[in-house]
């Protein structure tokens, strides 16, 4: 799903270069705006797939840019990439209309994963009643899971986790993304709780089947892989 058209508003040239390189390698095309004013003008004038905003810009802060865009009804997905990475900062950002918030320094693969997930959500790929992927089925209304037509009993939290993986099937979801979307937490517990929880779901999805479906992406997160 590469080839996204992305606007990056960032006053620091080196940081902008790194983002362009990292997303470029994933197949996206990144345009750079060095000031908030220019960023706002271009975001409003052109149809980008996604806008990445720095928060602290000398002329116009990222939060203000989002507010102005939302004011005129511009629905473009916005990822805030900021040096202000405290829990409060994230909440403030998300409350003001930003779709996702990533703190610097970040893992490039995490950035790519977040960009993909945002784009997918905006493109409405996850808006059907049933999500199918390989031999997996996720019934959103009934909150049930099937593999090869066999019902897999899941706890409510396990289902939420399964659903989020299915919505992003084939793509990497990071631990931070799971914490935020499944457990509604925006900080990083120091222990491996996410791995353990994914591990339990993995056993339910894989025990008694030939092929694995949940892949661990080392140092980053997990991916549902087609069986």
């Amino acid at each position: 799903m590469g080839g996204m058209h992305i606007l990056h508003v960032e006053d620091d040239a080196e940081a902008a270069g790194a983002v362009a390189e990292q997303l470029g390698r994933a197949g996206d095309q990144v345009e750079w705006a060095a000031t908030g004013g220019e960023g706002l003008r271009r975001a409003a004038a052109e149809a980008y797939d996604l806008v990445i905003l720095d928060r602290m810009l000398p002329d116009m802060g990222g939060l203000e840019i989002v507010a102005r865009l939302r004011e005129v009804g511009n629905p473009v997905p916005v990822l805030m990439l900021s040096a202000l990475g405290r829990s409060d900062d994230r909440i403030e950002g998300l409350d003001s209309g930003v779709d996702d918030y990533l703190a610097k320094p970040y893992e490039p693969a995490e950035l790519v994963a977040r960009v993909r997930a945002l784009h997918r959500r905006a493109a409405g790929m996850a808006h059907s009643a049933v999500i199918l992927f390989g031999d997996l089925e996720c019934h959103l209304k009934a909150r049930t899971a099937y593999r090869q037509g066999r019902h897999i009993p899941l706890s409510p939290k396990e289902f939420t986790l399964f659903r989020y993986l299915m919505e992003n099937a084939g793509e990497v979801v990071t631990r931070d993304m799971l914490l935020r979307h499944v457990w509604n937490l925006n900080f990083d517990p120091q222990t491996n709780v996410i791995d353990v929880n994914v591990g339990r779901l993995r056993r339910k999805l894989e025990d008694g089947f030939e092929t694995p479906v949940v892949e661990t992406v080392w140092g980053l997160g997990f991916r549902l892989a087609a069986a």
Partner: protein
Amino acid sequence: MRQGPLLLARRSLFGRFTVAIAAIAAAAMLLLLLAADIAVRRARDDSLAQMVDTDLAGLADIYASGGAAELADRVGDRLALVPERGDPSHYMLADGAGRRIAGDLDRWPGLAAETSESGYLTLEDGAQVYARATLLGPGVRLAVAREYGSWDDLAARMRTALLVSGLAILLAVASAGLWAAHRLRRRVAAINQAYQAIERGELDRRAPGAERKDELGELAAHANRMLARIEALVKAHRDISDHVAHELRTPLTHLDNRLLRLIDRLPGSEAAPLLQSARDEIRNVVRMLASLLDISASEAKRGDARGLERIDLSAVVANVAELYADAAEEQGVDFTISIEPGVGMLGDPMQLSRMVTNLLDNALKAAPEQKGRVALSLAQGPRIEVIDNGPGVPEEMRARIFDRFQRVAATGGKGHGLGLALARAIAERHGLTIRIEDSRPGARFIIERQEES
């Protein structure tokens, strides 16, 4: 806040002041009353003794010049002349056996004539008198008595006058005191109200009355200057935190990006793991920085109810408990969860989640590998307890483990030593206290509502 006068007297400085002033006034009045009474009594004694003695001396002269018959006549004269004002006198001229020769007394008063005895007596008809007796000649004695009711009237009138004026003074003192107390209390209450608002986080509030030149005005002015300073500091703190975060994170991000590019250019190199561990170290620095800023931010917002919402703490704690349940099981730890449903409070759900997370992290690290036990409970209050059966924390360490960078030996010194400090900062930001007790073996962390001071 309305207070009854009794409560005011006990609780208010000014109330106590007023009561003390009134008590002093009352005591002074009683003393005055007593002194006046003694003075009147003395004057009466002197006056009675003088009058009775003069009378007696005059009658003795008459006896000396005219004999007993003349004296009896004169006594009759004196008795006939009843004074319109003043106290009546009584006489008795008696023979050696005490039989009356003249006078209006029926019986000889119990006074020794030989020694010219004098004293206060009660006559048979009940009249109170001062009397003196004397021996005029062989077989002739004379007693002169004088009533002193007018003196008693005088004393009573004076007491009444003193009592009435004293009560008036007392009333005046008490009401002046109460008025002053009320005024002072209102001014101090206004200042206190401003402080309460500041405690709630309205940092721009100031104590009123600072423009006055008296002591309270001075106090308010001092306090206001300090408050302005605090407000500026809090504002500066936020700005500095943002700047520190930005100014440090940006170069760290550059550093990280460059390390990453190096790793990309040296595929399979021996340097790669070292470079990766350098990147991990950058992550640690950033995380520590974020935690420190979080702690300061929570401390700065201590007691500030703004930004808090009514939340279902049971749901928040259950969410975290669920996240940790599998991890505990995997670790072979027996994890008991006991959450009373419907525990509500004013809070920031993310921060409170983090507080519980840090305690659970800590407990799971402390729990022994064999037969480890961790218990999490939430009860109304709210009261949160996290118990582990690890080695516990020695008594002398307990006060310090909530300080920054105090690694708990029980957890093997893992972590950056900020988890418990952050837990405390979050607890206190929500008006909760956190403490650690011995759970024999292991540690018991208790978070509960701060006692209202």
